[in-house]
């Protein structure tokens, strides 16, 4: 019957999208509210409404964590090479070049010495945007040199971590960086010096199973994903559901695996306080325990 005949088509007028200049406003990943980008930047890349922590660039981290103009970068010119000629020529170099252009960095970590409230520290900061902050020879070498510098100059060592793990393109050379960095940290610890790790989203796999868990203090930003194996792999292997909040900073602190979660707004103050408590370790080396 004609009365019930389905129309062949309907005309739908799409709702007029409001023109939002790209990058001016963003929709918060945590609470879905729209936030003004400048507000976010002023608030250390933390959502003013829900407290969701967005990634920070290394420059933003430096501005937050060290005294103005005090940071002196070291080993800035270390550059990754395609030593295995991975999967044919050009694959890895292309990825490197792309991320170097995108981030303005040579590799996934910046290291140097600076001051926090007038006190010296050795500081390394990783940037997840550079190939998932994966650890290849350059990241491993820079962390090792920074640690050796801190040991030689009797400085506290602070590393802000983020990483997807080892850099596959460098094969076993990247796995060996786990051992190399841990060896340097053994000497730093043996010298009685403090090492503080600040885990940011996400800190996983090879970095997690080496220098990210060797600190005297393991601090983390709220909501950061922190773990060794990937959640998908665990789910597949064990054929079971993962507990709620699995591998978040909150889950780890609940299980006694890390020391403290620190909101970014408090990070500088608390880091300075912690370093102050360790000040006694920096002076004369106490009788070294089996150096």
């Amino acid at each position, binding site marked *: 019957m004609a009365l019930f005949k389905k129309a062949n088509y309907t005309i739908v007028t799409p709702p007029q999208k409001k023109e939002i200049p790209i990058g001016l406003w963003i929709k918060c990943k945590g609470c879905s509210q729209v936030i003004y980008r400048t507000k976010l930047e002023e608030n250390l890349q933390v959502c003013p409404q829900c407290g969701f922590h967005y990634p920070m660039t290394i420059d933003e981290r430096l501005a937050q964590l060290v005294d103005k103009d005090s940071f002196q970068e070291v080993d800035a010119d270390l550059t990754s090479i395609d030593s295995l000629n991975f999967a044919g020529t050009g694959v890895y170099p292309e990825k490197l070049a792309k991320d170097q252009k995108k981030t303005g960095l040579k590799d996934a970590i910046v290291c140097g010495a600076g001051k926090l409230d007038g006190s010296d520290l050795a500081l390394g900061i990783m940037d997840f945007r550079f190939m998932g902050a994966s650890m290849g020879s*350059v990241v491993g070498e820079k962390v*090792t040199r920074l640690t050796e510098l801190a040991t030689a100059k009797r400085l506290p060592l602070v590393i802000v971590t983020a990483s997807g793990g*080892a850099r596959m393109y460098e094969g076993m050379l990247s796995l060996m960086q786990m*051992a*190399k960095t841990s060896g340097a940290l053994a000497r730093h610890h*043996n010298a009685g010096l403090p090492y503080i790790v600040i885990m940011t989203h996400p800190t996983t796999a090879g970095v997690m199973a080496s220098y990210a868990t060797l600190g005297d203090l393991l601090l983390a930003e709220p909501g950061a994903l922190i773990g060794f*194996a990937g959640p998908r792999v665990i789910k597949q292997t064990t054929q079971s559901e993962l507990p709620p909040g699995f591998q978040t900073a909150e889950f780890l602190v609940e299980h006694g695996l890390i020391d403290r979660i620190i909101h970014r707004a408090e990070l500088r103050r608390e880091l300075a306080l912690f370093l102050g408590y360790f000040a006694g370790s920096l002076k004369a080396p106490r009788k070294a325990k089996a150096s």
Partner: protein
Amino acid sequence: MPVILEFEKSLYELEDKVRQLREFSRTNNVDVNHGIQLLEERIAETRKQLFSNLTAWQRVQLARHAERPFPRDYASRLFTDFLEIHGDRRFADDHAIIGGFAKFDGEPVMFIGSQKGRNLKENVRCRFGCANPEGYRKALRLMKMADKAGVPILCFIDTPGAYPGVGGEERHVAEAIAVNLMEMFNLRVPVICVVTGEGGSGGALGIGVGNRVLIMEYSYYSVITPEGCAAILWRDPSATPQAAESLKITATDLLALNIVDDMVPEPLGGAHRDADAAAKMMGESLRKHLAELRKLSPEELRTQRYDRFRKLGRFEENLPTLPAAAKKD
């Protein structure tokens, strides 16, 4: 029923023919010696041909061979007076890593080894050789005991990797591995690590910081499984052989990269064809390296171990900066 890999098939077929011929000659009383001799020559030729041209992926398959001798098979052939020591004193006794005092050539050593199972029951117990945090913590406890006793440490590694489980994460497997990496640099006794089958990433490295790191001829040591690498970088499981090639994980590749110090040869056809011969070759290699390391003082051993790992890594530095504009005559 022997486990036969795809590329070994032709060999086994020839061997079967020899067996059939022998049977035939026995039951029918016919002399077929000449035929057998010809066939055996062909077998030797085929085997030599096959094993001199193995691809990386074929080597991975050999390393995972179900009949490959496991660390405990080498231990039982090489050591006497083995006293196993259990548990991490905190939570459990992990069956994926075993260890204890033993004697090698009559001299005390601390043996630590990954453990895989031969059947389903054993494999459930040791999770196919994938250790939990307790395994790494037990290993470190034994290493410190050896350090106190002044006894060399021998770690035999054959694991697909650390076990990816909820419990392992809840008990901080990453920290357990990291602490081992750090503490192994403090040991004042010789440490020799041998990859006897699979060297699965951080799970292998967790007992792998030695003054010498050796690898058996048909073993592999990799940052990720070829399957995992193919899934992530190629998004295609059929790229696994290519991934195995690219990752440079065979004994010869790793020697060239200085990741390992020496390769322990295996009998032709692989250790699973003759476990006794394989153990003998491993014993010879251990003897040689142990003798060299025994000459070093405790402090020299630590320094040598640090320097060994310190130089690993390849990168560019201080690149000459090109002049802004090329000079013209």
